[in-house]
């Protein structure tokens, strides 16, 4: 248990470092991430470029630093969209019941009938390649999972004595939802969101790698890997560093998510 906590702390520290690096990118970056200098193309890591330069002579380290902001910002935005939609429809469905519940549940069931990545790929593909469209596509697919879990929690909470008591005191539905139901579902949802953050980063960078997400010259990690693919034999650093950046970031969120889950989940003792 102690080990888990310590690992979660390590995850948190890595996340703080990454977020800070992303925010301070304009100060930390040794070069302009978009500055093209063809005379300095494919320079190996060394004095001039710490992590080397890419096929257009751009500094890989600077691009990675700016890319941190791109990846984190998009992932947090997607998570925000997912949670807003999930909480809204999940609460609506669970609290109101009846016809509204039936309609929302049917929509959820239909969306869950698709393999997630396939549907996201299709929506992004139909809308056309761009980072915004990828974000819309991922959010459109992912919110259903949250809505379903939240609906279940709301249904179990709404029969609790304190909700009945609040209703007896004359609170209206909106007050009950905001004051009594939402605070009780928030912490498990935050755990879930932390655990999901990793997979969202992976999906965004994966779709960008396919060329659907961030468009050049935007320094997104997945897109950088895609750019460097052609040169991976002569300039392997173009492939190693962006991949490593994704791996470390996703790992940090997974570490923290695992730790938080054990803290909040009473079944954690069983899971060992």
């Amino acid at each position: 248990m102690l080990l888990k906590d310590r690992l979660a702390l390590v995850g948190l520290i890595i996340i703080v470092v990454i977020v800070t690096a992303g925010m301070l990118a304009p100060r930390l970056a040794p070069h302009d991430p978009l500055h093209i200098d063809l005379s300095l193309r494919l320079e190996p890591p060394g004095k001039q470029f710490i992590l080397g330069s890419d096929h257009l002579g751009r500094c890989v380290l600077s691009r990675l630093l700016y890319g941190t902001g791109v990846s984190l910002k998009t992932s947090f935005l997607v998570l925000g969209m997912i949670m807003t939609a999930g909480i809204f429809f999940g609460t609506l469905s669970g609290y109101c019941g009846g016809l509204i519940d039936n309609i929302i549940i049917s929509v959820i069931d239909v969306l869950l009938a698709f393999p997630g990545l396939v549907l996201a790929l299709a929506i992004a593909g139909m809308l056309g390649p761009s980072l915004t469209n990828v974000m819309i596509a991922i959010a459109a697919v992912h919110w259903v999972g949250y809505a379903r879990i939240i609906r279940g929690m709301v249904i179990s909470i709404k029969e609790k004595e304190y909700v009945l008591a609040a209703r007896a005191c004359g609170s209206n539905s909106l007050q009950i939802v905001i004051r009594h139901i939402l605070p009780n579902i928030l912490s498990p949802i935050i755990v879930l969101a932390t655990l999901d953050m990793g997979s969202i980063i992976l999906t965004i960078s994966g779709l960008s790698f396919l060329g659907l997400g961030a468009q050049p010259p935007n320094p997104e990690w997945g897109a950088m890997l895609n750019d460097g693919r052609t040169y991976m034999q002569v300039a392997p650093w173009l492939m190693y560093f962006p991949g490593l950046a994704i791996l470390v970031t996703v790992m940090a969120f997974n570490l923290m998510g695992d730790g938080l889950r054990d803290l909040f989940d009473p079944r954690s003792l069983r899971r060992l």
Partner: protein
Amino acid sequence: MSYYIIKRLSYLFLVMLGVSILTFGLSRLTPGDPAELVLATRGVEPTREAISAIRQELGLDVPLPVQYVRWTKKLLQGDLGRSFRTGQPVSREIASRFPATVQLTLAGLLVMLCIAIPTGILAAIFKNTIPDHCSRVFALVGASIPSFWLGLLLITWFAVRIPLFPVMGRGTVRHLVLPALALGVGMSARYARLLRASLLEVLGQDYIRAARARGLREQLVILNNALKNALLPVVTAFGMSLGHLLGGTVIIETIFAWPGVGRFVVEAIFNRDYPVLQGYVLFMAVVFVLLNLAVDLSYRFFDPRIRLEGGQGK
């Protein structure tokens, strides 16, 4: 059981109805007029007459509900429309590439099982010792590594530096090794941990204690008595992650130039070949739903506890 199957099938029908409406709606997401797009791909000047002619040809001149009914009618006859680009029926294009995707998926599954089962068993036997810690690290890295990066690393190391395997394409078994690894390794991490947890739970049960008390050797207890029961939750989780596997092949196929449906659909996206994309989504949803049904039914079949509940009409 039969009651359950009927209930499940009628539910399936409703879901498929929803899936068809959603897929039909997907094509409305495209920016611009599809008629102009078809003209552009055919290289025809988009005059007003040409556009109205093509709208009639594509059936775009009638209201949406009518379009949907017409589309569904064709769909039920296995007609997914024609590719804008090649002019070939989408169903045929997908069918000709699907075996390659199935082959890759099965190979990925095999890799996953070959890694996950031994790792999971070892981690459970040596709980909280070095093998268990190693499996924990492996699980963390496996869950966090981007499959496309793993694919690139495998190509660099085992196809370029040490030319053990071909870089890309399909043909011999050796072509299959690297893409299957890229697909299977990441997933195996999760299943190893899942198997470990479920094994540990089973190993604490009375019948295992009884088997041990009868003096059976520990390996036999694990292999004969425990593993069979421990695999059940793994099978359920497996059904749920089939979607990941089906979606995951898209990226792996693109990296390794594997001639399956995944790579085909990525090309279609960049060619704005929307009928192909639409057909692919629908096809994958049908495959996914049927696979889940199969997993669900087999789970009920193998676990008598659930079979009984099902028989009582749950």
